[in-house]
């Protein structure tokens, strides 16, 4: 006889773990299926973890979660060929008892989170790939097929938390294919390094940490960003650009990563480290307009699989965890009210998303992906111009300031007409408004 559950959660990343944990805590019979050796073994992220989203699921997570450093300083840099210009925000108030952001190592963090799922009472099976959804003649999902022998399992609802490729939903025609302009390919490395060097180079002590987000010359004009995060005993450094741009430009991703590591302002920060891993991963970048249908008869989709990623603010895991929690809470509520998990009732999940920061934020930046895609100047000309302007202004060389000012203005107008400059400012302001 085929075993039957209240819910099957496919995937054990942040969204899947949040869903499975909340469901189990709510007293539902849950099966979670993960294809990796353990939760986290297939997962890649920068990685920043936003405390608030997790706190709403596991309030005392700080007691035993494997956290690296809490962030006290955020830097945003525009890289020129051999320089950067940017902003830093550092505040001692981020040294609170309940810090807001942490760097994490996903393989360790996800493993810990999944332990909590098991403790909460869910049945977790690893090393098992779900190959397809089981659907009846009316299209209602009633379970999954796995690659195990006799690997059919049934449930009232299947929650798909299978990540950016979202194979299950796409193969069942519940989601369109992912266009190359809606996903970024990011590659990254982890460099182990003496913590004393991290403290010295980033001016931090104890568990304090710094994150650097970068744009500019190093993406070669492609739409993309780079990052450097401080962990306890390591640094993660990575870079990602839209797949469509990689495809058009004929640039290899690992070449960009090497260029980033060799950039004169980055190299001294990572020097002396030992590379222990190289990873590649896709990031959903299509924003609001790319979010597919998120629920139907007997199914819900959460996290990256539902394209819930805020590319403008580099937020993803918090949207993932929140969507996982909402999906679970929806199911718990329906169960309490004795309502069937049909599309009309599961629509409560969509309502929860719409009323939260998840969809409100995505909606706010709904035009940003197109603007970025159509405006390569943000990724090449501007970093160049701003770095050049700073260089000119800060070089003391017998030229009067008025002349320097004119030179700078001229350099901007030459690379990008005055009309273009005003237009870009307007477009950007509108996209961020």
């Amino acid at each position, binding site marked *: 006889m085929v075993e039957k559950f209240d819910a099957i959660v496919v995937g054990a990343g942040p969204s899947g773990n949040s869903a499975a944990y909340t469901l189990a805590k709510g007293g539902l019979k849950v099966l979670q299926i993960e294809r990796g050796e353990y939760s986290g073994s*297939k997962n890649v992220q920068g990685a920043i973890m936003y405390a608030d989203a997790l706190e709403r699921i596991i309030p005392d997570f700080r007691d035993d979660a494997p956290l690296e450093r809490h962030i006290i300083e955020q830097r945003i840099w525009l890289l020129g060929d051999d320089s950067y210009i940017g902003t830093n925000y550092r505040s001692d108030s981020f040294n609170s008892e309940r810090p807001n952001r942490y760097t994490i190592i996903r393989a360790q963090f996800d493993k810990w989170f999944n332990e909590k799922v098991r403790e909460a009472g869910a049945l977790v099976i690893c090393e098992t790939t779900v190959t397809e959804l089981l659907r009846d003649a009316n299209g209602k999902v009633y379970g999954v097929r796995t690659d195990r022998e006799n690997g059919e399992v049934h449930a009232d609802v299947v929650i798909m938390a299978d990540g950016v490729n979202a194979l299950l939903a796409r193969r069942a025609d519940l989601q369109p294919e992912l266009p190359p302009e809606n996903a970024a390919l990011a590659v990254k*490395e982890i460099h182990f390094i003496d913590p004393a060097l991290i403290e010295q180079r980033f001016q931090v002590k104890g568990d304090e940490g710094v994150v650097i987000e970068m744009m500019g010359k190093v993406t070669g004009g492609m739409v993309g960003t780079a990052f450097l995060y401080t962990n306890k005993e390591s640094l993660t450094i990575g870079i990602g650009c839209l797949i469509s741009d990689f495809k058009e430009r004929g640039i290899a991703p690992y070449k960009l990563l090497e260029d980033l590591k060799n950039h004169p302002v980055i190299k001294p920060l990572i020097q002396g480290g030992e590379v222990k891993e190289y990873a590649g991963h896709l990031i959903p970048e299509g924003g609001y307009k790319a979010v597919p249908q998120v629920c139907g008869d007997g199914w819900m989709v959460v996290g990256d699989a539902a394209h819930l990623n805020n590319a403008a603010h580099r937020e993803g895991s918090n949207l993932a965890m929140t969507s996982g929690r909402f999906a679970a809470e929806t199911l718990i509520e329906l169960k309490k009210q004795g309502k069937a998990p049909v599309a009309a009732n599961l629509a409560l999940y969509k309502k929860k998303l719409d009323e939260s920061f998840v969809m409100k934020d995505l909606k706010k930046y709904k035009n940003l992906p197109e603007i970025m895609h159509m405006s390569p100047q943000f990724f090449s000309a501007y970093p160049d111009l701003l770095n050049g302007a700073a260089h000119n202004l800060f070089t003391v060389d017998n030229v009067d300031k008025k002349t320097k000012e004119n030179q700078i203005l001229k350099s901007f107008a030459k690379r990008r007409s005055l009309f273009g400059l005003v237009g870009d400012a307007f477009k950007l302001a509108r996209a961020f408004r």
Partner: protein
Amino acid sequence: MSMIKVEDKLYQNRYIVDENRPHIYIKDAEVCASNCKSQPCTFCCPANCYTKDDAGGVNLVTDGCLECGTCRVICQDHGNVSWNYPRGGYGISYKFG
């Protein structure tokens, strides 16, 4: 040059290889050779799994695959890549992720 570098990078990773059961394959070698001029899989794959062969086609070795899905997305216009995750428990196993 870049080939050597990627191999060095992949060498750091832990893989549980499913011998003789590649999870991704090219459906029709002729399509790569004749219909696909730019062959983007040969430069976009972060693990360099795809390489140009002497006959103008594309050769695929999935051993170093990071399971990112780039080739799946990029080959949509030709639909010539059969893309699956490895069997449960196999493939890349990140220590840090």
